[in-house]
């Protein structure tokens, strides 16, 4: 019997949906190992986060309140999690496969000499896990052979866990501060009033076909707003500086699976499809009828986006009235 520890990511007093999803995977793993799923909230003055964490369906919430953890740099956070896993009898540590989770998880795996699988999409009854490789061209079933295990969980692969009433336990652990420490400088957050890309039910994504930052504003944004959708982008659009990097969807960007994904002026390279092909309904608007994106689109409109998108925006707005 051993427990499963879940790293609770948090920012501005909130837990992302990705953490609730990680709890679902952790509960599956805990059922196999016959232990509990324990959510670890690390930080300073995290009472609100801890309270919110009690509603994510874990068996228990442990709080490690320590000034060293005011910002979750990889070195110190991995050390804190190693100590927390030890103190809670957890042989497995689960992360959300976010940029933070993927930064910390392998460092922790090396620290506790664990097997690691990143970005898992399923947990089998025999304890093996499934993860995509080659931009999702291959789904591999992986056995984690070491006694200790670390996984990060793809946020679109499981439902979010919920369930109130997990007890909170304050834990005091000794954290070995690294000799050659990392130092936090600043975090420049992309501000947006739109839904969070990875949590939105609808996503409108733009590609190189938009041709400028200006047309992301004047053409794509109005459609996003009319639909209440988050905005996404292809790598080409980000590389060209049309939109910030954190909007990139794909193999090396974010993975999304909304109810509705509208790809505008995106060709549909495999690296892009890797980040959105599990969406429920995919729409593609592209002037090239041969664009590969049409091979995954439920509905394809061959049209000039500069005409079709404003027309669609007006008609969606009219429907809302």
């Amino acid at each position, binding site marked *: 019997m051993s427990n499963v520890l879940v790293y609770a990511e948090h920012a501005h007093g909130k837990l992302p949906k990705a953490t609730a999803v990680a709890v679902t995977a952790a509960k599956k793993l805990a059922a196999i190992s016959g232990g509990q799923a324990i959510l670890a909230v690390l930080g300073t003055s995290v009472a609100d986060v801890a309270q919110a964490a009690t509603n994510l369906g874990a068996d228990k919430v442990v709080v490690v309140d320590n000034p060293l953890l005011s910002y979750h740099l990889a070195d110190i956070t*991995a050390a804190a999690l190693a100590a927390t896993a030890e103190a809670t009898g957890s042989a497995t540590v689960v992360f959300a496969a976010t940029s933070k989770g993927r930064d910390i998880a392998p460092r922790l*795996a090396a620290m506790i000499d664990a097997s690691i699988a990143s970005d898992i999409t399923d947990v089998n009854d025999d304890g093996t896990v499934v993860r995509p490789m080659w931009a999702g061209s291959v789904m591999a079933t992986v056995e984690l052979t070491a006694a200790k295990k670390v996984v990060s969980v793809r946020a679109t692969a499981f439902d979010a866990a919920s369930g109130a009433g997990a007890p909170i336990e304050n834990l005091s652990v000794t954290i070995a501060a690294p000799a050659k420490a990392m130092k936090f400088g600043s975090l420049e957050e992309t501000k947006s009033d739109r839904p969070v890309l990875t949590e939105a039910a609808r996503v409108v994504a733009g590609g190189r076909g938009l041709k400028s930052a200006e047309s992301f504003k004047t053409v794509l944004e109005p459609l996003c707003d009319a639909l209440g959708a988050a905005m996404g982008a292809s790598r080409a659009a980000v590389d060209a500086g049309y939109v910030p990097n954190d909007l990139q969807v794909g193999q090396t960007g974010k993975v999304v699976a909304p109810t509705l994904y509208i790809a505008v002026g995106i060709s549909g390279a*495999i690296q892009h499809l890797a980040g959105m092909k599990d969406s429920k309904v995919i729409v593609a608007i592209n002037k090239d009828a041969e664009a590969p994106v*049409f091979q995954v689109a439920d*509905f394809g409109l061959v049209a000039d986006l500069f005409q079709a998108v404003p027309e669609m925006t007006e008609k969606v707005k009219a*429907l809302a009235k």
Partner: protein
Amino acid sequence: MKILVTVKRVPDPESSIKVNPEGTGIVESGLKWVVNPFDEIAIEEALRIKEAQGDVEVVVVSVGVSESQEQLRTGLAMGADRAILVKADRPDTAAVAKILVKLVEKEQPTLVILGKQAIDDDSNEVGQMLAHLLGWPQATFISKLTFAGDKASVECIREVDGGMETIAFALPAIITADLRLNEPRYASLPGIMKARKKPMEEIDAASLGVDLTPRVRIKKMAPPPARTAGRKVESVDELINALQTEAKVM
């Protein structure tokens, strides 16, 4: 200063990857092999540091099959000074990290630059593991690297979920390159000629005294569930109608 850059041999990202009928691996025949795209960016960054600072040696290293020499030659042709190939049979990420520790101990670099992820296994693990094993700071997914005036520390801008994060630390350190760190150069013809004469050392992983027992075992590979193409619509009206009445998502 010495910079170690890791280079993995991977299938061209443009190639179409198919699982073999036995489900034990991918069909390798006909594949074109290249330097992992993130590692090209890592090489480029090292070369730019060399060009800016002068007294810098850039060593490219790869762990894998003998043919990885081709990818190391590409690194040399871009401008790296020498190459090391550690021969190993399909090492997992933990094994690669442990092998790299040995090379770092031997070479004593000030900086190790890796790619953020290998586009074959998509693990995104080796840099972070290596950083812990060496007890060094790490900056993953970086899009900008700036040296302090005394060149003893660096500031890194990282691409994170919510935006851009800046962190700093003293060297030595590990950094992993994201897509927008730089635009890698192509190897020039004179570069390719020169690369032929640059030193390429070969080491057998077994001689390094590290435990190469896999910590992860791939039991099976399968293609992902197929998504079939839907249909084309003729107009915006038809599209909206389909989303309302057929797909019921609006």
